[in-house]
């Protein structure tokens, strides 16, 4: 008997019949060949979030992003006209990586007036025009206008900067993000400028970590020790049910209850949480961020017990909106079929006091402790899936609908791309 209402079909999965209900195979997560297919079919042609506008606060602010899965590195820069642009991070002269610091494979950021290649001193404006060639007279009919930086499509949605590496792409990012994106518009992301960023190298396929964060069925079990013992037993007894799921095109979302910010009974939480009034669900005392009413896509069921929504924007960007006015983002950047870089960032309103700062610290550290457990569990999953034990089919329940949808979407993208390429 569900605690929360399911769609008329009786199940969330049944509401999206194209997903089916049969067991799935994770063959797409253990094969170098399949990963090669994903690189072109997915990372080479979908909108990828590479940062936020606050990371480029002034003219000349730039950052680089390593997009290993898409076989490139991009420079994202705010020009003299305040426009945010992106370019392939390659000098037009001999192909040297244009912007890097100390280690060519590491990302960098800063402020500059132009980009100068370390190799022969070719110089580019913030808008990507070639402005200086060392010993220009030695070249043969070189027209600088022909050798600007190679542009990459770049658009900003609600302060999030996206790039698309497919020059033939004609879908604006807002349209790509679909109904789930539109339902988030107007959320005051720009007020949440206190940012803590984390990064991990994880020994699993990128999809398996999205799978881990796209269901909360695991939470009462894997994270049992994070709660006080009585509470933990109770949570495991209840299990997990979402308030709502939503799927639109390649994107999905799950809406969850959140009785812990603050908890009904203080004895449910740990001593440090009681004193600092904070925990996994964030600081209990929500700051004013000018949010009179939630945008329609957040807490879509308008449930009183709502605590957090997780949006999975295909392929690798998650946004979690928490009731006490803070946000988490996750990114999963594949580096091979069984490794990826996981990035997590906590966004808060700037704290006004030591008490608020410590409450945020507790939320951040709690997130980190959970993520450490999740990350290592994934390596355990990856190694066994790769062992090819003969176990090839795995069941998924109704609370795991977003996993079913993610793998289904990946297969559709790869198949579509290859069908088009064959034409």
């Amino acid at each position, binding site marked *: 008997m569900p605690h929360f209402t399911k769609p008329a079909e009786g199940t969330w999965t049944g509401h999206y019949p194209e997903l089916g209900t049969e067991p799935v195979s994770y063959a797409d997560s253990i094969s170098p060949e399949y990963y090669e297919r994903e690189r072109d079919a997915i990372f080479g042609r979908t909108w990828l979030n590479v940062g936020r506008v606050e990371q480029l606060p002034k003219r000349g602010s730039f950052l680089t992003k390593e997009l290993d899965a898409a076989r490139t590195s991009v420079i994202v820069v705010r020009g003299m006209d305040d426009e945010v642009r992106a370019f392939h991070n390659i000098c037009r002269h001999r192909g040297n990586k244009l912007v890097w610091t100390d280690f060519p494979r590491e990302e960098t950021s800063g402020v500059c007036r132009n980009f100068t290649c370390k190799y022969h001193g070719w110089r580019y404006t913030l808008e990507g025009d070639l402005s200086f060639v060392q010993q220009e007279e030695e070249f043969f009919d070189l027209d600088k206008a022909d050798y600007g930086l190679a542009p990459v499509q770049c658009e900003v949605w609600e302060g999030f900067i996206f790039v698309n590496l497919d020059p033939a792409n004609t879908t604006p990012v807002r349209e790509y993000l679909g109904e789930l994106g539109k339902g988030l518009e107007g959320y005051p992301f720009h007020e949440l400028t*206190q*940012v*803590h*960023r*984390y*990064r*991990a190298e*994880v020994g699993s396929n990128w999809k398996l970590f999205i799978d881990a964060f796209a269901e909360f069925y695991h939470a009462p079990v894997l994270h049992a*020790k*994070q709660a006080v013992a009585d509470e933990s037993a109770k949570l495991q007894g209840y299990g997990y049910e979402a308030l709502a799921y939503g799927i639109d095109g390649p994107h999905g979302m799950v809406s969850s209850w959140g009785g812990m910010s603050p908890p009904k009974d203080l004895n449910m939480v*740990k*001593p*440090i949480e009681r*004193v*600092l009034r904070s925990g996994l669900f964030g600081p209990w005392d929500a700051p004013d961020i000018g949010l009179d009413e939630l945008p329609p896509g957040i807490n879509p069921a308008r449930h009183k017990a709502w605590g957090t929504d997780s949006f999975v924007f295909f392929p690798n960007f998650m946004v979690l909106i928490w009731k006490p006015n803070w946000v988490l983002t996750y990114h999963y950047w594949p580096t091979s079929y069984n490794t990826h870089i*996981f990035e*997590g960032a906590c966004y808060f309103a*700037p*704290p*006004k*006091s*030591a*008490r608020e*700062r*410590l409450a945020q*610290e*507790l939320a*951040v*550290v709690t997130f*980190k*402790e959970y*993520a*450490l*457990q999740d*990350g*290592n*569990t994934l*390596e355990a999953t990856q190694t066994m899936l790769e062992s090819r034990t003969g176990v090839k089919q795995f069941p998924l329940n109704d609370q795991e609908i977003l996993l079913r949808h993610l793998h289904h979407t990946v297969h559709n993208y790869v198949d579509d791309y290859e069908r088009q390429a064959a034409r």
Partner: protein
Amino acid sequence: MTSAPIFPADFADLEPFAAFARPTERERYDHRIECSMAELQAFYDAAFPRIDAAVAYLDQYALDALPEDAQKLMWLFCALVTVSFPVEVWRQPRVPDAGASSFDEVAAPAI
């Protein structure tokens, strides 16, 4: 062997735990996993009852204009947050089942 006090005089009782007062979460976590449970417990037992006093003291100042001794005190109480997990939950310095995996702070607002 006495070193100069680093915390405000009201918090002289916490001077033995000065090594926990580190500026970033990454350094605080690194220190936590170098410590024994007895060391973590001793710090927790001394600092936990002092949270309210510390917060009241720190809140006299603007967060971005803490005097040096207050800043060190702020770092110490951030370290209490880091240490609360092994003491209150894990019963060991590392996150259980986290193996060799790491999850590192790469940027955070300075205190």
